[in-house]
């Protein structure tokens, strides 16, 4: 039990224990391995630029990217905050809409059938393609278009996962609730939502990366300046490649941050329901 706990805490899925490696060694390996890969890649990169002589135009060296990152630090921070805020607002609104609509769809079949084509088309249409349209709709000085795009992008995985989660309630639990003459609200609160919780959280985790990507890419299509996406495109357009890369690094960090926070949230809320997914 304690061994399982240790491995779960270090991001492995339960039920896949590796034999022959102690949990501590595994943890160390899990951290050391990716760091080593990163360092090796950076080393080769720097080597290609400074020794082999790949032009700065083609590939700026890691050192010059770090230089730009330091030089433009205040701008990097404000850009990250701006894009991050757009992504966060989009993620929250998209998730709330996704959960609400999934709740309606699971409750009333007509809503399900009406929402299915809408969600399918949302999933298929590249949502950032809406950016120019939304920008002209809401004006060039509004962040609303980007937030709307992030919300739309977040909505799809949250909706799909939540709807699936809402359908996981075990027949024995539903009958128990019926035997208790529980009201629909009570069933939702005590049975449906807790059952769906792991699915909802997974949906939000997937959506978190999409929200950042969408909020960022939406900035490529005009609108107010100052976000990471806008700065990447203007830096690249003015041949400041190292600076463009510096903003790319910041976007990667932002995306990771969103992912890790939602992952942490998932872990935290899941701790007391280790077997929620297993049907009785």
């Amino acid at each position, binding site marked *: 039990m304690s061994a399982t706990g240790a491995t779960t805490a270090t991001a492995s899925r339960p039920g896949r224990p590796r034999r022959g490696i102690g949990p501590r060694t595994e943890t160390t390996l899990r951290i050391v391995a990716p760091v080593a890969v990163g360092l090796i890649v950076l080393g080769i990169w720097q080597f290609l630029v400074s020794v082999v002589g790949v032009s700065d135009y083609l590939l700026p060296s890691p050192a010059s990217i770090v230089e730009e990152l330091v030089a433009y630090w205040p701008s990097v921070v404000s850009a990250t905050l701006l894009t991050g805020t757009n992504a966060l607002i989009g993620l929250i609104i998209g998730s709330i809409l996704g959960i609400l609509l999934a709740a309606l769809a699971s409750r009333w079949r007509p809503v399900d059938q009406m929402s299915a084509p809408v969600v399918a088309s949302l999933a298929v249409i590249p949502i950032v393609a809406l950016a120019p349209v939304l920008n002209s709709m809401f004006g060039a000085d509004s962040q609303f278009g980007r937030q709307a795009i992030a919300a739309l992008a977040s909505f799809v995985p949250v909706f799909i996962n939540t709807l699936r989660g809402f359908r996981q309630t*075990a027949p*024995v*639990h539903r*009958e*128990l609730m*019926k*035997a*208790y*003459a*529980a009201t629909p609200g*009570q069933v939702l609160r*005590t*049975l449906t939502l*807790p059952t769906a*919780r792991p699915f909802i959280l997974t949906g939000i985790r997937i959506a978190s990366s999409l929200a950042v990507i969408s909020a960022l890419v939406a900035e490529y299509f005009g609108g107010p300046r100052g976000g990471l996406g806008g700065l990447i495109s203007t830096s690249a357009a003015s041949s400041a490649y190292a600076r463009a890369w510096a903003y790319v690094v910041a976007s990667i960090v932002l995306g990771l941050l969103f992912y890790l926070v939602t992952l942490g949230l998932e872990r935290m809320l899941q701790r*007391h*329901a*280790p*077997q*929620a997914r*297993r049907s*009785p």
Partner: protein
Amino acid sequence: MSETVTQVAAVEARGVDKVFETRSGQVQALDSIDLTVAAGEFVSLIGPSGCGKSTLMRLVADLDEPTGGTVAVFGKSAKQARLDQEYGIAFQSAGLLPWRTVAANVALPLELHGVASATRSSRVAELLEMVGLSDFADRYPDQLSGGMQQRVAIARSLAEQPRLLLMDEPFGALDEMTREKMQYDLVRISAETGAAVVFVTHSIPEAVFLSDRVVVMSPRPGRIREIVPMRLGADARRAERTEELREERAFFDMVTAVREALHGGSPVGAGPRGVETR
């Protein structure tokens, strides 16, 4: 079924039919069932699979509706009885909510019906004491054995002191040792609370040990073949059912009587008497 009922019967089924619509046509699950369960009486439903014993219990619980006939629970319609929470129910699988602790699982019906928090926790403590799980109140269901989970489910079914307990093979998944222990506990608990019990099982010794009357059913269509009264004792003596009872001659006679009823009245020849037919 000509017995006179002095007080209102716990369950009264009259001419109950149940037809299921399946892809391959209609299936007659129950055919003109008449059954009365008196208040405080322990009645087992036994029969081969497909005889409709679980269906009958589900009709009493208003989890399904009869196609024909009426089911009354304490003189009310089954639906009204369900809305009024006249019965407690336990299924074959414990059906505990995995994200709730043992105590919170037992408290669930109390919580749903707005029992105050203080009353709730004292009642839960009392119930866990009754099923011998006081030390496990803060555990989660997946940390308990199957037998313990089932005991939690039974504590939950007793939470609101129902006058009627409906149990659908609650010990079906347990090993023999645990099963006998649970049967003994159930006899004790039902005697203590004075609740009527409708108990679905496919174990003859279990039915004999527990019941005041055993209802033997036959399949396709589900009918009551025979109702075997158990001479092992009426309500007053139920508490005296101890482990020794299982070794008494009367016990084996009753087992044989139920077996013969199950086999359509013909004497069961081969095998020593009292051998389990499960």
